[in-house]
């Protein structure tokens, strides 16, 4: 019983600020600023309509989704062989290399904001979704390697050896047998790449100006306009939660193991 109360209170604490945002997104700006109301007395969807009609808004949403998608695909694809190498072999400098990869995971994005700006301007990728997708690889590739290595180490090596004896070539073994075995791990790694690319804002806004502006950057426009358009801001905030909520549903059974980075 106590357990239910504790978890109930915790979930309530998590839900309150979100409820307030959703509540606010359905109010008009007069109601928001005039009085505190616990549900919209004059419910309106004008803010949502505004977002879906303004190309700057929904364009931003599409930009965000495209760099997140590109980043997730790139990170998982290049992390797969590396994770296999780390989980199956010892090689010259493996420990140092692994540590060096992890250190990128821990590097503050603020440190990279300025050099990335220079780098991506120099190679002509500035203000494209590719710049953001590649920049997020900085922390997502090491993360994907780390998670996948954990899941791969859980697969007994006898499977590799048996497959080799049965005459499977390495690529055929890898894609036909090994990848299906660690499908959960790939799902979890992709989920984490999605998550960290979707929530990151500093690099995404530094590397874009007009064409590839992410949704979170478009949101800052509501600050500058005459006064604060609270309702619009709230509606935009609510929309940013939806992709995460959808993705989470797919990995719900592996979430706990995923957070332990496949290491429990």
């Amino acid at each position, binding site marked *: 019983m106590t357990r239910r109360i504790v978890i109930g209170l915790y979930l309530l604490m998590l839900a309150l600020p979100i409820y307030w*945002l959703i509540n606010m997104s359905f109010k008009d700006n007069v109601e928001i600023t005039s009085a505190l109301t616990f549900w919209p007395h004059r419910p309106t969807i004008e803010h949502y309509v505004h977002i879906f009609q303004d190309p700057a808004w929904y364009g931003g949403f599409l930009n965000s989704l495209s760099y997140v998608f590109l980043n997730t695909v790139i990170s998982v694809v290049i992390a797969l062989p590396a994770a296999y*190498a780390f989980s199956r*072999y010892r090689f010259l400098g493996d420990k140092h290399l692994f540590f060096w990869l*992890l250190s990128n995971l821990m590097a503050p994005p603020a*440190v990279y904001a300025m050099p990335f700006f220079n780098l991506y301007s120099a190679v002509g990728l500035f203000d494209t979704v590719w710049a953001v997708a590649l920049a997020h690889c900085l922390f997502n590739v090491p993360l994907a390697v780390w998670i996948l290595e954990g899941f791969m180490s859980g697969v007994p090596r006898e499977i590799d050896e048996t497959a080799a004896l049965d005459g499977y070539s390495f690529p055929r073994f890898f894609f036909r047998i090994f990848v299906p075995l660690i499908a959960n791990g790939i799902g979890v790694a992709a989920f984490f790449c999605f998550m960290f690319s979707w929530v990151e804002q500093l690099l995404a806004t530094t590397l874009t100006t007009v064409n590839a502006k992410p949704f979170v950057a478009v*949101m800052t426009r509501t600050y500058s306009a005459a006064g604060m358009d609270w309702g619009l801001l709230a509606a935009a905030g609510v929309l940013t939660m939806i992709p995460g909520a959808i993705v989470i549903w797919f990995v719900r059974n592996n979430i706990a193991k995923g957070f332990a980075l496949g290491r*429990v």
Partner: protein
Amino acid sequence: MNDKPISNRAWFLVVPVMVFVLFSSLIPMMTVVNYSVQDSMGQNSFFWNGSEWFRHLFDPTTDIGGRFSRALVRNLVFSGVVLLIEIPLGILVALCIPKRGWAVGAVLVSMTLPMLIPWNVVGTIWQVFARADIGLLGAALTGAGIPFNNTQDPLSAWSTIVVMDVWHWTSMVALLCYAGLKAIPDAFYQAARIDGAGRWSVFRNIELPKLRRVLIIAVLLRFMESFMIYTEPAVVTGGGPGEATSFLSLDLVKIALGQVDLGNAAALSLVYNLITLTLCWIFFTTMTQLDARGSA
């Protein structure tokens, strides 16, 4: 761990990752190193400046040095406070997650939701929520007679940011601990029941030792993440009031992108990065040692 075959051909599998990380980490880092030892007269003409920027940074009497040391202290205090709240709370929540049934999935999904909200939206949510005029929390506190204003009063600003971080990240600690708890075989609990162990002694003697590994991951991930915090305080307080909540990342972005003071920004970047790198190294060695002990 140590029975893995040695094969240097495995390097070929690592090459793609190497190329990517070289491009997105080493090249940018070299630019920073370059800036940190040079000064500019404008028009892209740079000259050698030696260790001047670093000397400024470590001298608390200079403007930049003072800002750096105050921001560093702030960062450490913040990480400490956040860990002290989130780790015990996370363990408690993990112990209370339902064991079976549909409720497990529902609880896990709703717990994870705050972590999937873009960081500046998290900032926005709390900015709105804590406002005395239109926010539930701010209005409730003011209504209860507690003076609360996170744009004027440093204490309010700090508590808002700490509560926001607890709201945002406690679930991660809880999920890690939950994963650790699930790995405990039922036989352990049965044995405890036969021995007549109470709830506390089950926790103390069975659950806590099994959680040690995930707790190390949790503590270090939370430490790193809170040490790098940027977006949420940038939105909620913008580092203010005054410089009360101006953490290292906020200062760095202000210097690098706001004032385009490349030399100071680069020196600060390198030192900041070295601090996190040192902590990361401690993390990594602790983990690998535990791995070794676990498999021995």
